[in-house]
């Protein structure tokens, strides 16, 4: 496999060149990241092609650390003279910043081995080989299945197939050089049913993977989207109450994201996390184990090295209910007297910052039906809205839709409600974990039940 930058540009060569130029312009330390790729999007709606998008791009992000002063610049203009000027200007820009003794590149002993990338299954040549006609056919099959699934599906917002064939390259002034190709494919459908009161009920489903063979059947995605729309017909608000709340796997995944955002060195040194001072202490129910794992082959956040070139590793966030520790990049680790966990995330335009990779809530033994069985009244959540989570306190309050549970069964659809609680309490109150683990993007979770939350309705 070779680099996948458009126009035959080798991404690693650009990164290496930027580092050389910055060094020549006087940089003490520097690193450069290059993200290159060709992306395509096909949308089919009511059987017709509605959008056809294809383009390639290459972007360079350069970080210079000059006597502890940091500057970060990004550009897409990679002509030789432009690159030289860009490197010089980045070095000059660093003078604005104040010296920070914790700024700096990783210890070379921590560098990842780029050769490990091949085993991680990040690239699938079948995605690169897909023709536009094949992509249109996938989207068409998906949408047609949604429309055919139920006569009550009266409209759709289309089915969209997107692919990306890209390359990530990183080089630094301490000698790290690494790059790897990566592909992704996603297919998403939104089906719409008309309710009796004139209200529209959308149903949404998707599959997103790094290889074509893992992508769900297009027709299956369409059918699930249709079912989720029809299931919401007649949805109404329940009375405000405190009841058990069950999260289907796709919704349980969102709780992992909230927790992980609070479990970073960045949130810790800013004093902006409710997890401060809780390392090694019981946090969640003993049923809960949560892993951050960038080494699972073929997943969305899988990577051989992090955004600073540090070897990635599996990190346990919660083991049998105990909060085991935070995720660090080099800066936050030095600042707090820790070691990096290989968790630096990196965009072109921003400094590295610790972030989770693939998140897994380990499955339990219960079937979803068993989880519902002993609930007399409760809420089963299939959609969440809004950003009502406060990382500093853990307070949680979000719009929700799904089903009302009566005597162990999904009785009727619910919309326009709000669920609220506190994440620490919610994690402690998890009293059932299903065996039905499923992946959504870079996270996987089974069905979970929270003993009690406030559901605001009528």
């Amino acid at each position: 496999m070779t680099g996948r930058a458009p126009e035959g540009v080798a991404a690693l060569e650009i990164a290496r060149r930027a580092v050389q130029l910055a060094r020549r312009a006087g940089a003490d330390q520097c690193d450069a990241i290059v993200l290159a790729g060709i992306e395509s999007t096909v949308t089919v709606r009511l059987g017709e092609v509605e959008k056809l998008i294809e383009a390639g791009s290459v972007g360079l992000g350069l970080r210079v650390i000059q006597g502890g002063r940091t500057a970060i610049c990004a550009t897409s203009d990679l002509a030789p003279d432009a690159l030289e000027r860009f490197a010089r200007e980045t070095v000059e820009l660093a003078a604005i910043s104040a010296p920070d003794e914790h700024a700096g590149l990783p210890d070379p002993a921590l560098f990842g081995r780029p050769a490990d990338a091949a085993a991680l299954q990040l690239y699938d040549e079948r995605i690169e080989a897909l023709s536009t006609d094949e992509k249109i056919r996938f989207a068409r099959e998906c949408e047609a299945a949604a429309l055919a699934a139920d006569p009550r599906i009266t409209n759709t917002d289309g089915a969209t197939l997107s692919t990306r064939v890209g390359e990530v390259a990183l080089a630094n002034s301490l000698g790290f050089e690494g790059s790897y190709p990566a592909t992704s494919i996603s297919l998403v459908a939104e089906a719409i049913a008309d309710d009796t009161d004139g209200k529209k009920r959308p149903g949404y489903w998707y599959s997103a993977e790094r290889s074509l063979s893992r992508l769900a059947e297009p027709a299956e995605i369409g059918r699930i989207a249709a079912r989720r729309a029809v299931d919401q017909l007649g949805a109404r608000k329940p009375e405000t109450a405190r009841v058990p709340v069950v999260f289907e796997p796709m919704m349980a995944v969102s709780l992992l994201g909230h927790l992980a955002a609070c479990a970073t060195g960045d949130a810790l040194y800013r004093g902006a996390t409710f997890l401060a001072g809780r390392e090694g202490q019981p946090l969640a129910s003993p049923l809960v184990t949560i892993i951050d794992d960038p080494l699972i082959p073929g997943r969305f956040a899988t990577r051989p090295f992090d955004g600073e070139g540090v070897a990635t590793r599996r990190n346990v966030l919660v083991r049998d209910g105990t909060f085991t520790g935070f995720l660090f990049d080099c800066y936050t680790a030095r600042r707090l007297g820790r070691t990096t966990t290989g968790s630096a995330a990196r965009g072109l335009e921003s400094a590295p910052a610790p972030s989770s990779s693939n998140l897994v809530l380990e499955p339990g033994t219960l079937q979803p039906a068993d989880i519902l069985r002993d609930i007399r009244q409760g809420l089963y959540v299939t959609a969440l809205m809004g950003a009502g989570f406060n990382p500093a306190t853990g307070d949680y309050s979000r719009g929700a839709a799904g089903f009302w549970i009566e005597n162990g069964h999904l009785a009727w659809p619910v919309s326009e409600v709000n669920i609220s609680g506190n994440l620490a309490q919610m994690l402690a109150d998890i009293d059932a974990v299903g065996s039905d683990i499923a992946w959504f993007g870079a996270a996987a979770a089974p069905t979970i039940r929270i003993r009690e939350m406030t559901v605001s309705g009528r």
Partner: protein
Amino acid sequence: MTDPALAALQFFRDRFAIDPALTSSLLSIALSRGGDFAELYFEHRTNSAITWEDQRVKSATRTVSQGLGIRVVRGDAIGYAYTESFEFEAMRRAAETAARISAGERTAPPIDATPSLTGITYYDTDHPLVAEPPTAKVALLERADRAARAFDPAVTRLDASIGDELKYILIARSDGKIVGDVQPLIRFNVSALAQRGDNRQVARQGGGGRMGIEYFERVTTPETLAREAARQAVLQLDAADAPAGTLPVVLAAGDSGVLLHEAVGHGLEADFNRKGTSNYTGRIGQPVASPLVTVVDDGTIASSRGSINVDDEGNPSARNVLIENGILRAYLQDEISARHFGVSPSGSGRRQSFKDYVMPRMTNTFMLPGEDTPEDIIRSVDRGIYAVSYSGGQVNISNGDFVFSVTEAYLIENGRITTPLKNVMLIGNGPDVLSKVTRVANDYRLSDGRWTCGKDGQSVPVGVGMPTVLVSGITVGGTKL
């Protein structure tokens, strides 16, 4: 002041040799397989930011982004491609890729290109913040830091940033129109941490607009923004848990416009209505809100964050009345939707960058004032919520269901504002809430420029505004029964 249309034309001609002969030849390639309409969107954008924490500059960043997006329209369908290179070969390939939305072959008629000058500008493009020395920006950050720390000893941390953007755009269309704009934008953000024992609260405040450094004299000061963030963080330390259930809600003037933006604005974007996926589809001329409600989207407000001289399809921005005394009057139109509905474009075609296709979007969206006073409105409520500021919201376009996170809210008891509340969420349905607007005050104001709107993964700067309004019932998502 320089005409920004002229400045943009000169910028692309002098720097990249982009002239009418070149754009016409690319447009001919774009239409070489048929297609009703084609357009080129050239963009050159410089962003810089300085971030502040631990009472010093943490880092300085700068990004230069440039490219050309090419769109070919056939009926309601589009072909789209972009390139980051202004080399002819790369642009020609992008034009051919976009052309594939049509399958035919034909020789496109020659395009008679005529650059047009708008002759009007809603913002000063001659003095962008980009041109100020970094020391001037650092001084503003220092001022914010001092003010927040002096506000209350509980404030233990202050993070801030100052960002500026200068964007040149040039749009060339197959109908011969060529028009450009220069769009400056600044943004000042502060985040304050207040701490008392284990109780920690973070509050954010920000502002800005299409202005230069004069923003910090004309509109507000770094001190004001910083003290506001500090005040909210300290206030939250003692805030009580929010009630749960359906209650009357008084929406304060200014930022509450974000509710209007989410609850109705998106549903009035013409693409959703053209596809029949909005709850407002087919309802022009019908009552969709209380007769007290008039909603306007206006891209022409001087120096406002959401304002544009021309939209990203080259159409002049405008003041569009969407709902008038409760009656639905118009949708926000881009070119494709305007053709579909047989109306004029409303100057609402916007995109995040040259990498993105155009959609109908809002600019500055607000409700016109009524005749009540805010004091009378609050006095009329026995038990309810007074909602002042928000961190954001989300709407389900197809049925209007929305949620909002309220960052500053109070209980109203017996006509008086009492306890500050935390973790207040408002959840409801757009048309339902607009029908329950029972009083509208005379204190309309536009929010300071801090809002960004997301749609289909594309972000654009917007403004919102609102007078004080009483909604007779919204579901409040709290914890206290």
